[in-house]
């Protein structure tokens, strides 16, 4: 493998892994906050117990998120030093802010997890507020750096050097708002559905405890509030992309030829050789309406841009459809659940409904990962759009393939270790081993 491909694979691999943990690190604090808030408000202990039980997975996932985030910060330098040397003065600022937000998050998580016996219930609730705010802020800041790569602003170029640097303008670049809102909400949906899946599974196995019902309702409530907002912010994002990043939009929609009254193509396989989409479903004029709110508007296709400057629609269009499709896969069982919940005034436990929720549960994460792939593949071949190609940002150091292999082995080992621990049955012997006299030895 050449250096660029190795570097891209490693970065993609690390991000794909980190995104899962980071997402839960954003979503779970909101759940904790709502549960602790409800517990304080209603005096119902069950809500508090709910939150305390989420804490153990939260601790583990946060820790992995912190570590995989460190890996990423190192990889920025190990793999993309030329990109960083150029853009560090601009995207360093949001990363610094993210650093502080993450710091705050780590502190309040530690306080919340380990402080139960040292802090009042109200103080624990305040900790979850700080946790929710700082995790959302860290998401928004880190997304700003990605948004800048899509729509770089806040500087002028003179002889390939940065002049007139305005970091705060770079921070608030034109893609930031929609990417940050869309991305943060996506984390709430992904976490909510993943957790709903866990409780749907528990209910399917027959443990119809109040605890499981309450947890399922709460997780689905947070996900269901965020889900319609995903469609709204997704539409906002698409319109902004249509105005600012036309090649990306063309690749997303597998739109090869510039046309007025452009159709929306759902599914299918884009074939760049023939410039056609095989087996796709066409809805006339819908792309023009969605992109420009006008059925006869002209939408630039991939042919409107010089060859070698546009992304490959085969990598973008399928993931775009997967992202949008996932939303509807989640929307249907969620709507069914709330309909029955409203009709019966009790948590519905129909087997088919629970099965549907279980099946839909990974799609929040799938949608989020797909959306990330759309924005990344959709920017190719640029690392900074229209300014620096990926091949110009990669390291000149050789042997990146070796680093790639090292990290693949590490991640496989860690995943194997995690699975082994998660799947290991709890035996009575373990329990006696975990307490020694009056003190616990179990972390």
């Amino acid at each position: 493998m050449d250096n660029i491909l190795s570097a891209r694979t490693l970065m993609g691999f690390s991000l794909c892994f980190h995104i899962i943990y980071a997402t839960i690190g954003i979503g779970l604090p909101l759940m904790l906050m709502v549960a602790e808030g409800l517990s304080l408000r209603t005096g119902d202990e069950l809500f508090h117990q709910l939150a305390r039980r989420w804490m153990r997975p939260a601790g583990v996932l946060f820790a992995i998120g912190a570590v995989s985030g460190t890996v990423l910060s190192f990889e920025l330098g190990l793999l993309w030093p030329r990109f960083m040397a150029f853009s560090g003065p601009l995207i360093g600022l949001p990363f610094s802010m993210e650093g502080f937000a993450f710091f705050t998050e780590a502190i309040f998580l530690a306080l919340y997890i380990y402080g139960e016996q040292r802090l009042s219930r109200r103080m624990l609730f305040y900790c979850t507020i700080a946790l929710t705010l700082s995790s959302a802020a860290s998401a928004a800041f880190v997304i700003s750096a990605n948004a800048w790569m899509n729509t770089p602003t806040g500087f002028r170029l003179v002889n390939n050097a940065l002049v007139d640097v305005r970091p705060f303008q770079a921070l608030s670049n034109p893609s930031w708002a929609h990417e940050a809102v869309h991305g943060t909400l996506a984390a709430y949906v992904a976490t909510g559905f993943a957790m709903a899946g866990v409780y749907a599974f528990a209910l399917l196995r027959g443990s119809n405890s109040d605890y499981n019902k309450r947890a399922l309702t709460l997780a689905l409530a947070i996900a269901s509030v965020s889900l319609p907002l995903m469609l709204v912010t997704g539409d906002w994002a698409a319109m902004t992309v249509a105005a600012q990043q036309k090649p990306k939009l063309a690749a997303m929609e597998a739109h090869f030829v510039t046309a007025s009254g452009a159709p929306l193509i759902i599914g299918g396989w884009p074939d760049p050789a023939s410039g056609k989409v095989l087996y796709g479903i066409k809805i006339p004029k819908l792309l023009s309406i969605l992109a420009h709110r006008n059925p006869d508007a002209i939408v630039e296709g991939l042919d409107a841009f010089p060859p070698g400057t546009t992304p490959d629609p085969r990598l973008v269009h399928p993931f775009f459809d997967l992202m949008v499709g996932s939303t509807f896969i989640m929307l249907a069982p969620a709507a069914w659940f709330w309909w029955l919940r409203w009709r019966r005034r009790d948590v519905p436990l129909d087997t088919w409904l629970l099965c549907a929720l279980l099946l839909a549960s990974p799609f929040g994460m799938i949608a989020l990962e797909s959306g990330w792939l759309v924005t990344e593949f959709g920017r190719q071949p640029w690392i900074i759009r229209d300014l620096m190609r990926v091949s110009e940002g990669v390291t000149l150091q050789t042997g990146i393939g070796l680093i790639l292999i090292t990290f693949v082995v590490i991640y496989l080992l860690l995943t194997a270790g995690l699975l082994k621990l998660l799947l290991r049955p709890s035996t009575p012997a373990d329990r006696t081993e975990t307490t020694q006299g009056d003190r616990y030895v179990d972390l």
Partner: protein
Amino acid sequence: MWTFENLAAGTVYLGLAMYAVFGGADFGGGIWTGLASGPRAREQRDKLFHAIGPVWETNHVWLIFVVVTLFTTFPKGFAALFTALPVPLVIALIGINFRGAAFAFRHFGRQTGGHVPFMAGTFAVASILTPLALGMAVTATATGKIIFVKGWVQTGPWFWIGPFTLVGGVVGMAICAYLAPIYMTVRTEGELQNDFRRHGLYAGLALGILTTLEIPIAMVDAPLFADRLLALRGAVLVVLAVSSGITAMVLLWRCHFLWAQIAAATTVALTIAGFAAAMYPDLLVGQLSLAAAAAPPATLRSFFSVLVIGITILIPSLLFLYWTFRGEPNPELPQLWRNGEDHE
């Protein structure tokens, strides 16, 4: 003197010192988990694990702070460092990964250091590997061997292995092994406290010998660095670090643990300050000055405005954290975990 780039460099080294003083102690805990011995070996391990549990993640963030500050304020320096030093940095990352994993997996309960030798072993090895590799990477910047050709780093993959950096790596390890037991003396009592006191004295002695040894080695292997270290500014800090180190040893010997803890942390901070003074005015000794590596002034200005806001949020939060978990690390975990109760 008080230029933005100097202040930024000060911030990087301050972050490094915070990482050493807080995160370093966590690595030291890992080292002593591996070296725990005698009749109370198991208790030593458990105490170390419990002390580190609530704070390691927060402490780890100092490393991210250093990396982020470095690429924001010295983007060229960051690019050069990471191009020149992939091997030690990857080794450090591997250590960080496994150390984090060892801790994360313990969250799932049912395990203790004594019962799961593999997990404890991973934790110990990772805790040795990371400070060693980071120590070597940091001291490699002082050797003057990171060479630029046409604005880009041109160095072989193994230039960072030499007498100066090897001792530098061991100093990194020694700093960690030195802090952990001394911090533990305030969190334990009786025999166990005495064990940690003894470990602290050994490690202090080792750290003193190693840092002393590093000076003549630097004269041969990193001459420019050695010159600056022995010039006025560097020498003052060396003298301060040595006196602080001796004070810490005396306090520890005489069982003034709280003050010994403060003196030990001060010693480490002063050692790093001495290193920073000997690096000045370069980021990479003799090859890349702070001024040449720095980001444009507008970036540095906005970085410092963010820093000020960030710190006003951070400091009270950190104080609250350490204040809440002050004193002996009693079983902190909530009832639920302590009963070994199982979850869905």
